[in-house]
Structures are given as C-alpha cells and as structure tokens.
C-alpha cells in the first residue's frame, strides 16, 4: 500500500494478520437476543482476526492495508494484479489499449457485471468513482494519482462539472486522456481508489457509505460492528462463475498478534501472523513449518540520514554508517524475516538490480572513512524512531554496531505521526528509521517519490539532491519500454547508493501460517491476499 510504512511490523500485520473466532459470533448473538446465525451449519467460513478495526470500506477513503484487503473483496477495478504477482490482468475491463506515447488509454468493459443491488456496472460508474476521488470535498488521499488526467485540475478547482479527459462514448467503453505521458497510468487504475461505486448508493448515504458499501466484487458486507467484527458473505451474482468458493469471511477485531497465535493453536482461526517469540519454534517444528507461507514484499526499510545536517553532509560519514551497521544481524534479530538490502529497490520489484553490491558489514572500513572525514573518535547522534518494542530492539542492535566505530547513538522514540511530521521539517531530524512500501511495481515509486528534489519537504525525508539523479529520473519517466526505462532507473539507483542518503537496512519478508484445511491461498508481494479462490476442506469446528 502506500507508502510510508510504519517500521517495522505494522504493514505486515494487516496483511499477515488474519484470524478469527467463532465464539465472538456466539457472544454477540447472546447480547443481541439470539438472532438467526449468519451462516448455516457446514458453511465455508474463513475466520480471521486483527488488532485494529478496519479504518474504512469506502474505496475513495481507504489508503492502508486493512482497508484495501476488504475493499478489494467488495469492489472491482477495471484491471487488477494477478493473485501472486504484479502483472496487470483484466477485472471488469476485458481488454485495454494504450497509445504509443502513453497519453491515451482505452478500456473495454465486460457487459455481464452487476452491482450487488442489481444494477449493471457501466463505464460511467468508473468515471464517477475517479471524479469522486478528485473532488476536494471527498478529501481522498488518492487524489494525487489522477491529477495527470486532462481536465482534472479544472474539475478539482470547480471550473468544470466533469473531468474532460475521461470519456465514456458508450456504457462499455472508457477512455482516459492524460496531459503528459505516463506509462504506469494503468497501475493507478488498479488501486482501489478507482473501483466502480454506484452513484445512487453514495448519494443516499454520503459519508456513511463506508458502512453501507455496495460493490460488484466477490463478497458483500453483511455486518460490521465497530471494534468487534466484520462479516462478509459471498456475492452469488459475482461475474466470475464458481467464485468465490467461500460462503463468507469473519474478521474478529481487537485480537493482538499473541492472542491470534493462541486462537490459531486452538483451531479457532484459519490464518495467523507468527509472533516473533514463537517464530523460531514454528520453523523448528516441521508440522507447523509446512503450513507457513512467505513472500518478499515490495518494501525497503532504511535508516535515513539528513543530508543537510552535519556530520551527514559528508558523504564519507554516510558511507561509513552503511559499512558500520551489520544488516545480517538485524535480519537475524527479526528471526530472519528479511533480506539484507543492497540498495533502494527491493528484489520483488521489476527493475531490481541484482548486480548492485551495496555495503557489506565492514567496521574497519567505516572507521577509516570516519577518520578521513575528520571524526577519528566518532561523534554523537540522535536517531528518531517509532516507539515500538521491536523497533527499539532493532535500534539497539544498530546502537551496538555504531558504538564499535565510535558513533554514540541516542534513541528518541516518538509516535508514528509526529515522526512523519518532524522528518518533513528541514534540518530537524538527523537520523531516523523509516520504510517504504510500493504503490506500483515500478522503480519510479521509490526513486522519484523518495529521493527527487521535487519531494523535499514531502517524501524526500533525507533531503537528498543530486542533479544527475534527477536528470535520469526525468529521462526515464515517459518511457514505456521496460528495458530502457529500467536501465535508466538502475543507473539512477547506483548514484543514490554511491552517495547514500540512507543506510540500506533490509527488505522484509512476510510470513503467515494457515490451518491445514485452508487451500488456495496465495500471497501477493504488493497487495493483501485475495480470498476469492480460497476453500476449506472438512475440519473440526472451533468451540
């Protein structure tokens, strides 16, 4: 999902964090005066659990893993990612074409798709969805992705009633005209922001649409008790025949990672994250290890250095930091659930550079560089980090390593939101732990967003600037040919690694465990797993 990911475990949690409990059903049934159970005996119901409530189910509003997980079950986009990869496949659009200069994109819709209220899905529903995101009144975080459509600025400013660059010549055709070439535009249409929503239902509920969502996806919202549980049921009229295979999904809310594990052990939930403390045990137990699934997500964790604040203005110091920190140890501390980073781009991302060597652990070299830079006895620096137990442990590992080269690290744990605010202020945060998870499978989503001059004060939190780097990005941006595009991005990445604004820490690996009766589950490197093809073999029902 986007973006700035909470270091270290939060984005994983939602994706991995699934589970549930049957007794929640029983419990609330008692309270409500025993209404009819939602699912008949023997129904195929997947039980999940998570700690926090789902922020929203409104596609215009959601911008986090938890929301997207359920939004993509309830809504459909024109195109989507395949279950296990980041290649675009048809969803409601049966086919699509792009103009050679990547400014016009034409999509042809299936004609057999209906919202769960019975109305046929038409091209106007997609136009409406994107206009809704662009409308400032909606306050959607997805707005930035559709500003490149011709006429979007006029619409957002209230100078036009509709976006001129979105044309719907007939109910089954939609054409997007962009004001500048953007070869990765189709990826933006695969984000839940661009999912078809029925205008009449949104008009009826307004801001409350999130609680009364109607979409065309494989599942429908049946019940959402805030802070307790979310129940989705199968959409019998879903346009893909035989899908979904489940009758429903129940997500229990307010269940932390450790509790999920207990529930998983009793068989009350079907999927679970694996808490750090039990991870070594799971790996050593072959019965459990066989039930785990792992995926390298498109995420990079890094220690950002503010290139405008001494001593990090000196490239020798920044290189020394990279040599001084033992990334293998960091990965070991998180139970091996990561790959030491060699640069900015994670290995699952198209355009990854496997030949990039990065910075091996070499404290002697770090000491030499520090001496050259005029810090023979090191220095003292303060690192800002999210106040989180795992994070504090990782920070102490870094603190241990840096002490060996004379750098005394002070830890400053702060809340996640204040941390984000602080790193956007110039010359405020000298060092910070951060991370980024891809929105699109394209190097631009890391290099442009995190390291270009245009993002100073926004996402370029290390205040890095190199004119050669920016020139390469500008050259790569309009290119549709992946080979040429990626070659330029690789060159740009080499500049950023040679003049490192970050200590490249590691690429996290998500692990999840399923019950032996859960089949057909596939993890995706960039999006929450889809559940429409999951099925359950007979199993003892939880107490």
């Amino acid at each position, binding site marked *: 999902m986007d973006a700035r990911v909470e270091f270290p475990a939060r984005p994983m949690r939602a994706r991995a964090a699934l589970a549930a409990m049957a007794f929640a059903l029983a419990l609330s049934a008692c309270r409500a005066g025993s209404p009819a159970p939602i699912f008949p005996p023997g129904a195929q119901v997947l039980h999940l659990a998570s700690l926090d409530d789902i922020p929203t189910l409104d596609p215009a509003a959601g911008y986090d893993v938890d929301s997207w997980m359920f939004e993509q079950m309830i809504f459909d986009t024109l195109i989507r990612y395949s279950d296990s990869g980041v290649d675009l496949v048809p969803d409601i659009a049966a086919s699509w074409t792009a103009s050679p200069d990547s400014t016009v994109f034409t999509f042809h819709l299936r004609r057999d798709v209906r919202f769960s209220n019975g109305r046929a899905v038409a091209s106007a529903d997609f136009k409406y969805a994107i206009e809704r995101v662009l409308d400032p009144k909606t306050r959607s975080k997805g707005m930035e992705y559709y500003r490149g459509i011709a006429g979007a600025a006029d619409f957002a400013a209230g100078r036009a009633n509709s976006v001129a660059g979105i044309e719907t010549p007939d109910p089954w055709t939609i054409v997007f005209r962009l004001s500048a070439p953007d070869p990765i535009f189709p990826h933006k249409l695969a984000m839940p922001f661009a999912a078809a929503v029925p205008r009449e239902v949104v008009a009826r509920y307004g801001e409350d649409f999130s609680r009364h969502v109607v979409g065309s996806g494989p599942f429908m919202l049946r019940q959402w008790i805030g802070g307790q549980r979310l129940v989705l049921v199968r959409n019998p009229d879903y346009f893909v025949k035989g899908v979904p295979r489940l009758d429903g999904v129940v997500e229990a809310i307010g269940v932390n990672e*450790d509790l999920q594990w207990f529930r998983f052990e009793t068989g009350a939930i079907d999927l679970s994250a694996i*808490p*750090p*403390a*039990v*991870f*070594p*045990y799971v790996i050593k137990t072959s019965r459990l290890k066989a039930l785990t699934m792992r995926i390298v997500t498109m995420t990079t964790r890094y220690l950002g250095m503010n290139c405008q604040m001494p001593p990090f203005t000196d490239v020798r110091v920044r290189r020394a930091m990279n040599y001084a920190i033992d990334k293998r*140890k960091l990965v*070991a*501390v*998180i*139970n*091996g659930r990561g790959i030491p980073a060699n640069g900015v781009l994670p290995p699952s991302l198209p355009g990854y550079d496997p030949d990039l060597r990065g910075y091996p652990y070499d404290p002697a070299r770090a000491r030499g560089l520090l001496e050259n830079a005029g810090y023979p006895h090191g220095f003292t620096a303060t690192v800002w980090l999210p*106040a989180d*137990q*795992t994070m*504090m*442990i990782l*920070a*102490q*590992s870094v*603190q*241990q390593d840096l*002490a060996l080269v004379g750098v005394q690290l*002070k*830890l400053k*744990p702060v809340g996640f939101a204040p941390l984000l605010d602080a790193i956007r202020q110039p010359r405020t945060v000298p060092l910070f732990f951060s991370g980024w998870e891809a929105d699109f499978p394209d190097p631009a989503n890391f290099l442009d967003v995190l390291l270009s001059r245009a993002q100073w004060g926004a996402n370029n939190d290390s205040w890095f600037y190199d004119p050669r780097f920016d020139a390469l990005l500008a050259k790569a941006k309009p290119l549709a040919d992946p080979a040429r595009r990626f070659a330029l991005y690789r060159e740009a990445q080499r500049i950023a690694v040679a003049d490192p604004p970050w200590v490249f820490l590691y690429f996290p690996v998500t692990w999840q465990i399923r019950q032996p009766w859960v089949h057909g589950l596939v993890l995706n490197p960039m999006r929450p797993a889809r559940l429409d093809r999951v099925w359950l073999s007979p199993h003892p029902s939880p107490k």
Partner: protein
Amino acid sequence: MKLKLNFMEAAGAAMVLGLAFVAIFAPLLAPHDPTRAVAASFGDPWPPSRAFPLGADQLGRDVLSRIIYGARISLIVGVAAMAITLAIGVAIGLAAGFLGGAVDSLLMRFTDVMLTMPALLLAMALVTVLHPGLLTVLLVIGLVSWTQVARVVRAEALSISRRDFVVAARALGATRTRLIIRHVAPNVMPIIVVMAALGVSGTLLLDAGLSFLTLGVPPPTPSWGRMIEESTAYFRTAPWLAIFPGLAILYAVMGFNLLGHGYLRRRRRDASNR
C-alpha cells in the same frame, strides 16, 4: 555506643550491602560487556548455560552481565531519588508542622492536591515532557513521591513543637531557626530514617515501572525494568529473560524493606523498654 541489630535489620543490611557491592564492582564481576552482542542468540534467546549462566537475550547480550550492571542504575535511582524525595518532603513537612497556621494549611492542601494524582501517571507525564535520562528519572521520582514524607514529618513536627522542651526553649528566647534546627529536626530524624529505608524500595519499584513503560533510563544503559519490558514478547518461549531481572528487583526491594522494618521494630521496642 553498641549497635545491636535485630535479625531483620541484619538481613536487610546484608542484602543492601550485597547490592552496593555488586553495583560498585560491576566491571569486575560481570563476565561480559552488558551492551555488546556476545552470543549469537539474535532473535532466538538462549537458555541459561555454563557460558551464559542466566541466558542470552535476543540481541546477543549476556543477561547476567546486564543484571549486574542494572544494579548500578537501581541503586543510584533508589538512593538519589530518595534523597530528593526527602529534601522536598522534610522541608515542606517541617515548615508546615512547625509554623502552623496559614502556612500549614497552604502547604498541606497543596500536598493533598499532589496526593490525588497517581504517582506513576504523574511520573509518566513528567518524563514525557522532560528529556528522558537518568537525571530526569531521579527528579521526577523525587517530585512525585515527597507527599507521604511531608505528611508524616509534618505530623511529627507538629507534636514535637508543642512539647515542653520546645516551649521552654522558646520561652528562653530561641529564634525560630534555632528551634527548628536544634530542637525539632533532631527529634523528627528517626521517623525520617524509617521513611527513607522504606521509601527506597518504593522508588526502586517506580523506576522499574517507568523503565518497563520505556520511560526510564534510555538504552544502552541496562536497567531491570527495561529488561523485563524487552522480554515480554518472549515470555512464553524464553521466560528466563523476564524472571531473572524480576528476581533482582525483588531482591533489592526486599533488602531495603527489611532494613526499614527492622529499624522500625527496634525503635518500637526501645520505646516500650524505656
């Protein structure tokens, strides 16, 4: 003067001296550097073994060495924070008890207001506002725990200042300062000693609590409370990481409590024998 200790006092004193010994000679006693990774137990803590008698934590640090060094922080915080507590508490208590009247009412109502606020909550708020560090922790613990001392000292000072010898001294023309320093304060001293010995265990626990809430002395300095906090995730799989620092806290608190209660008991007996 012959000092005869009762059993409780002797046991308490021995335990406290043991703690002080460990704290002072930590560098000689600890087998390893408490902040460095000395075991390859990353992410998978090691159980107690011959090389690491109390195990090694998830960052490869030796638990025994960390507990030994943790004694330093505990002792410094326990004693220094108690000194601050006493300084504030005794000053306010003496002033209120001896001067009486409006000063007494004002100081005691202020004390009551401070008492309404839960110490730990107040300490958390103060640490969050101030920069976390050893000095902050000392100051904050002193600032939140003086109230009990002030009340007890006030009561004692009030009763003493009405006794005949004080009245006589006053009639002889002793100044207020002289009365407080020469007559009231020395007689309040025994109760202060008891409050101090018993109070150290309270400040120790408060420090452990703050550390457990990650508001204590920041890493890499080892502290018992933080050791427990850092091992909560491993409680089921590596309970020794939490149990040993827990026992260390128990030991220190018990030592000071025995000392304080033993002394109190002796005073009572002495008083009844007199």
